[in-house]
């Protein structure tokens, strides 16, 4: 039995190593809210997406590119997946790995959007992709309930820097 267990653990560790490249945390809304309300001068680009959302998937490279282009500035990209938390291992992690996403990815594990959507933005009707750009120091925020081109994203971000 011990042997089998050791082999299983070893196997699990082997599998875990490539996964280290990008952790995907599963969080509840209060945790997301806490992160977005910190008194920091970093500008957050928060994109709400899902692996099943075609326009979201098309738009993701723009966030990755912006993250690289602004790597030396106080800009942080946070990709909030609205995939069901039950799909973490089946859908989200393989997707993140396959696309080589380097921006931080979290899965928001909330079943009732009506309980939190409004707290992200009163105007958000619930369609995705949805992007929030926020800077708590300057108290600036911008929201987009649509797919953004790279140029649109850059223009929007420039106003924060």
């Amino acid at each position: 039995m011990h042997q089998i267990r050791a082999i299983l653990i070893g196997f699990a560790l082997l599998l875990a190593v490539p996964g280290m490249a990008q952790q995907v945390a599963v969080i509840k809304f209060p945790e997301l809210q806490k992160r977005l309300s910190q008194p920091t001068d970093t500008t957050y680009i928060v994109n709400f997406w899902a692996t099943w959302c075609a326009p979201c998937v098309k738009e993701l490279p723009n966030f990755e590119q912006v993250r690289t282009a602004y790597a030396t500035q106080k800009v942080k990209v946070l990709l909030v997946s609205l995939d069901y938390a039950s799909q973490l291992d089946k859908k989200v992690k393989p997707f993140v790995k396959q696309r080589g996403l380097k921006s931080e990815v979290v899965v928001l594990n909330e079943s009732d959007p009506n309980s939190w959507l409004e707290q992200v933005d009163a105007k958000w009707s619930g369609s995705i992709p949805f992007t929030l750009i926020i800077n708590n120091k300057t108290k600036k925020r911008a929201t987009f309930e649509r797919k953004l081109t790279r140029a649109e994203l850059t223009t929007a971000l420039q106003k924060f820097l």
Partner: protein
Amino acid sequence: MKKLLPFPLLCFVLLLSSFIVRPESNGYQVGDKAADFKLKNIDGKMVSLADNKAAKGYIVVFTCNTCPYAKAYESRIIALNAKYAPQGFPVVAINPNDPAVAPGDSFEAMKTKKYAFPYLLDESQQVAKAYGATRTPHLYVLKRQGNDFVVSYIGAIDDNSEDATLVKTKYVENAMTEIMAGKPASTSSTKAIGCTIKWKRA
């Protein structure tokens, strides 16, 4: 220079600004009268709200074939019709997606559905725009007042898209109970995640 604007001018400016901050594209709010439409059903016939003289109202739902959330809610939309059509509030499903963007939502693809209620194509997307629908599924309860249909609930079906057995609050059913009792829905507007309507490329 410091003189305040004369009052009538101020009123006029406020009036103007109210148009600016509330563009038409916001769509219906609860309490608004819904304009009738004429859309093609998957059986080829044109359907309008006015056609069904016996309807006390409608459950209008913008939905489609392809969105995972629409798929997750399909059986629950069928159940809504089964429950409320006999009580005078049948479901009318409308697909607003541009098939050029979402080929799986073409009229041909829609015809694979065999619903007991109309499944209409909003080819010009004007109905979705008039309602202010942004996603699929996006649901509106209309209640008849004479020849008008008044928007009485807008939003989500329930609070758990993934698993119907874990639903705690059936938003639309709660609203329906009140609306059918002649009362305004105490929760008349809810929000839900859904797939963006695939608008025609400009």
